[in-house]
């Protein structure tokens, strides 16, 4: 286990692994997303109350779940980077941020489009919506902080602290609908017990979520590779790898 951990934290090994795994993640993700989109838009029955408009949850809910999960991955990577002084972990954290920000934007935008016909408003300062907006600002703040340093190592350390501090917003977003009165409804699938959705409508949702996760993994492979390329641009192994490939 520890041996594997050390091996993985070496940039040449990580670079090769990312190159190797990326196509598997990407093509599986694409297949799952296409399948789930067909399932959600065509096969699933319309909702008894929201009719066909409910189908936007097949994008909205997975994107929102990912906006939190990516942040947790980023914060863990940043903490590992700080504690064990592993540069690659910082590279992973840096690679997560724009992807997480993109998922957050998708969640907010689809939620807004959903809100207009269902609730009657594009935007409300509801606890869930407001905390999700803060989530977006955390990602943007992290990226801005990184960009403000010329020295990668100093950027790594400073931004890692922000990533770790910001992780407290994740449970706030998740439980905002439980802790406070809100316009947004309570959790449907991400809760203990039986999901409040019929199986015929739920399976495309789970499939889409899995697709999004694998898509994130694929994009992360790409972004980690380019982070390694940038950080190790003077390393001998890299020259060798690029020459042979």
């Amino acid at each position, binding site marked *: 286990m520890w041996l594997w951990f050390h091996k993985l934290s070496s940039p040449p090994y990580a670079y090769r692994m990312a190159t190797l795994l990326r196509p598997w993640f990407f093509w599986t993700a694409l297949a799952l997303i296409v399948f789930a989109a067909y399932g959600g838009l065509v096969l699933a029955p319309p909702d008894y109350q929201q009719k066909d408009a409910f189908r936007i949850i097949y994008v909205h809910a997975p994107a929102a779940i990912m906006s939190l999960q990516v942040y947790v991955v980023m914060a863990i990577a940043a903490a590992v980077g700080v504690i*064990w002084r592993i540069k690659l972990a910082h590279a992973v954290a840096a690679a997560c941020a724009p992807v997480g920000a993109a998922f957050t934007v998708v969640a907010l935008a689809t939620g807004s489009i959903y809100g207009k016909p269902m*609730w009657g408003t594009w935007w409300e300062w509801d606890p869930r919506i407001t905390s999700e907006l803060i989530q977006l600002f955390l990602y943007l703040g992290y990226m801005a902080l990184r960009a403000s340093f010329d020295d990668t190592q100093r950027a790594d350390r400073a931004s890692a602290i922000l990533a770790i501090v910001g992780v407290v917003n994740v449970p706030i977003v998740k439980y905002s609908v439980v802790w406070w009165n809100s316009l947004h409804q309570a959790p449907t699938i991400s809760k203990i017990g039986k999901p409040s959705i019929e199986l015929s409508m739920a399976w495309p949702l789970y499939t889409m979520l899995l697709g999004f996760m694998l898509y994130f993994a694929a994009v992360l492979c790409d972004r980690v590779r380019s982070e390694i390329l940038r950080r190790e641009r003077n390393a001998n192994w890299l020259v060798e790898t690029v020459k042979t490939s």
Partner: protein
Amino acid sequence: MTMTPRRRRMVLVGLILLGVSGAAAFALTAFQDNLLYYYPPSDIAAGKAPADRVFRLGGMVEEGSVKRDTGSMEVRFVVTDYQKDVTVSYSGVLPDLFRDGQGVIARGQLRADGVFVAHEVLAKHDENYMPPQVAESLRKQHQQKAPAATPST
């Protein structure tokens, strides 16, 4: 016990997390009242809602309480949390999901006579998703169990 630098950093990360989550928890508890997105009718009956400013009222539209004025946009309905009721008066376009028994959130002000004058009415749907057939059979079961249940439209 001597601390290796790694262990020290681990403790540091732990302390940061503990401190920040503690601070967040305190702040959220302290501002609980200001974070209140809407007031249920019980709170209004108990006099907890602000009388002099705009706030939000949340609850269910009482079955059969919706009355429309012919010839105007004016609509009156009762919002209930099954303990207390508040009459709401509203003039404007209602969301598609607005109907008897639907959760709604109304933003407006409480008039001296106890009528809540809304500027905006939003529909709040719940977390349950099901096909129409399932909803229909659930409704039938419900009616068989409780024949006195109010008829739905």
